[in-house]
């Protein structure tokens, strides 16, 4: 496996063998290592010294169920710290088939021209993207597929990335060529935009599957993992109801963000629940579909396709975090409205969590009434049109709160919280506070843990374990929902890795990767100027009780500051 460096100023490619100390890292951990080795932590995230890194996980390449995920990373223009954003879809598989361990975009062009990078086994070609500038993600993807063929994978940005909005992401095709799989968080799309790259087309038709050193051992471990995943009760829940089944669970636990995080329960939660969504999609029939996969080989298939009553597809997929932030958080109880907003956010190429949170802040400031979906769609058009209001909201909740003078802003390190209020699931709150990524549930979700989520004393330990495991899985390219399969047969990770690479790693590999990754990330943030003061939940959440439970975030600072002492 090689490292491919593309200088976007000179448009030259440099192919290298990865250094030894990068070998056993993948995805998020490899990004952290490269950033520490090569990027000045104090650089301007949107300047020439930042690098944009595409790194598949170590297990990517063989359509192992839910294990073909892509990490994209850089110094974040949103948080000012390290960033890894993770996505499903088809890109990572093609990158590995090209023999690429990490793709690194370096430097910055001196002209205002936009470019497509076409990558194939022979090398790279730059082609003009000026005719695509300003186009939405869906139209751009369609044109690229027409031009290059639908066998390719594509990573692209929308107008949000072109405008270098701080919460813009990078979109990827799913297995059905829909460009809705987003490396969403922290402004990775803005960094791609700063390098004037509208799209990267990955053509692995002349590539080959990554070699497996011991095919028999790999097949055995593969079967063990697949069986564990298929038999796991959670697989059926995610298959039938998708992530949106979280809505009622979060509501029952009083942690569903409602009206800009002013309540943990939404009185209309039933109307945006996974149960209601599933029945609606079944009643509407094809092309609506409650069960769909984003990547080839996935046996969970947690995704969905949402079509309106006339059979017109509104968006695919609609997930819980969007339902929480764009639905209950804005007081919107209509799934079709949420789906349309989700499509527009995808088309502009924006993180639905951060924009949903920003709109919630805007509601508190009086720019929109809670429940007014039409006004939300109007504001999204302002973002697309690059108006001053659009640029405020489009740069995320933290900036929106500062400009509009709102104190109730649900962010850590300037990044918006996911759809779990940290006052009622405090372990996830610890993750929000202490993760080097900023507020991000995927960095260490604790809601599944059978603990008292309100007891401040047991949260740090729970979050630490979740953060270590999550960072480890993000090295492997494993979807969060495949992790419950590996939790049943943890030795399958060891066996798959050893069979594929001929290594001799032990059963603690996941935790070794997780700890190393977190240490690297924290070192980067330290060099960037972060301190314990950045590892805090917003003060208002420690003072303002959350209805209906009445809890505040009260995990001690000592617990927060000691979480990475291992």
């Amino acid at each position, binding site marked *: 496996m090689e490292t491919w460096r593309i200088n976007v100023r000179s448009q030259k490619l440099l192919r290298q063998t990865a250094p030894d100390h990068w070998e056993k890292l993948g995805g998020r951990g490899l990004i952290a290592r490269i950033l520490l080795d090569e990027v000045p932590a104090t650089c301007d995230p949107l300047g020439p010294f930042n690098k944009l890194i595409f790194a598949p996980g170590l297990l990517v390449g063989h359509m192992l169920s839910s294990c073909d995920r892509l990490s994209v990373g850089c110094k974040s223009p949103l948080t000012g710290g390290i960033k890894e954003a993770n996505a499903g879809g088809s890109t990572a598989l093609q990158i590995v088939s090209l023999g690429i361990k990490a793709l690194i975009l370096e430097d910055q062009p001196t002209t205002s021209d936009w470019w497509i990078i076409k990558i194939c086994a022979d090398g790279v070609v730059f082609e003009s993207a000026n005719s695509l500038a300003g186009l939405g993600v869906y139209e751009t993807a369609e044109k690229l597929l027409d031009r290059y063929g639908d066998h390719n994978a594509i990573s692209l940005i929308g107008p949000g990335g072109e405008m270098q909005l701080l919460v813009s992401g990078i979109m990827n095709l799913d297995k059905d060529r829909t460009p809705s799989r987003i490396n969403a968080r922290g402004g990775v799309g803005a960094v791609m935009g700063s390098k004037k790259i509208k799209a990267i087309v990955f053509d692995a038709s002349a590539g080959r599957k990554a070699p497996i050193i011991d095919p028999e051992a790999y097949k055995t471990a593969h079967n063990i993992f697949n069986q564990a995943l298929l038999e796991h*009760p*959670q697989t*059926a*829940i*995610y298959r*039938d*109801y998708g*992530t*949106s*089944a*979280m809505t*009622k*669970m979060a509501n*029952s*636990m*009083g942690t569903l963000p409602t009206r800009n995080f002013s309540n*943990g329960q939404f009185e209309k939660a039933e109307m945006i629940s*996974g*149960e209601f969504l599933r*029945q609606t999609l079944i009643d509407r029939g094809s092309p609506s579909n409650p069960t769909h996969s984003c990547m080839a080989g996935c046996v969970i298939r947690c995704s969905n396709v949402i079509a309106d009553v006339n059979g017109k597809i509104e968006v695919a997929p609609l*997930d*819980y*975090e969007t339902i*929480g932030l764009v639905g209950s958080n804005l007081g919107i109880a209509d799934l079709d409205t949420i789906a349309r907003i989700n499509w527009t956010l995808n088309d502009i190429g924006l993180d639905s969590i951060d924009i949903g949170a920003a709109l919630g802040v805007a509601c508190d400031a009086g720019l929109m009434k809670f429940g007014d979906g039409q006004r939300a769609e109007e504001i999204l058009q302002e973002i697309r049109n690059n108006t001053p209001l659009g640029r405020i909201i489009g740069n995320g909740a933290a900036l929106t709160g500062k400009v509009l003078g709102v104190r109730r802003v649900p962010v850590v390190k300037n990044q918006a919280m*996911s*759809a*779990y209020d940290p006052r*009622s699931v405090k372990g996830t709150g610890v993750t929000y506070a202490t993760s080097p990524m900023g507020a991000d*549930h*995927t960095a260490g*979700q604790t*809601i*599944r843990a*059978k*603990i*008292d*989520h*309100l007891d401040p004393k047991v949260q740090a330990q729970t979050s630490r374990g979740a953060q270590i495991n999550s960072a480890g899985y993000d090295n492997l390219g494993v979807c*969060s*929902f495949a*992790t*419950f399969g590996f939790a049943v047969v943890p030795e399958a990770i060891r066996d798959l890795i050893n069979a594929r690479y001929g290594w001799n790693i032990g059963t603690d590999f996941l935790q070794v990767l997780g700890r190393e990754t977190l240490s690297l990330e924290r070192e980067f943030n330290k060099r960037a100027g972060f301190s314990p003061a950045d590892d805090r939940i917003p003060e208002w959440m420690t003072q303002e009780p959350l209805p*209906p*439970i009445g809890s505040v975030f009260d995990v001690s600072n000592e617990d927060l500051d000691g979480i990475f002492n291992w």
Partner: protein
Amino acid sequence: MINVNLHTLLQRKTETGTVSQLELILPDGSAVEAILHLLDVTFPIDSIILVVNHRNVEQSYQLTDGDTVDLIPAMSGG
């Protein structure tokens, strides 16, 4: 009276529709697990999250009149 909310796979399909909410009368001091037995829930207990009045509880948790119980096939987030 105990109010019971059934989530996802624990909802009941009946001839008249899907049942997601129940009102049960249980003897004083009944534990949450009594509901599981009453409803003949066969889902693995380790894979069910038991929530009473918004709070995670063990299956031995003793119920009080007016409690709201959520029986949730466990999920790991969105």
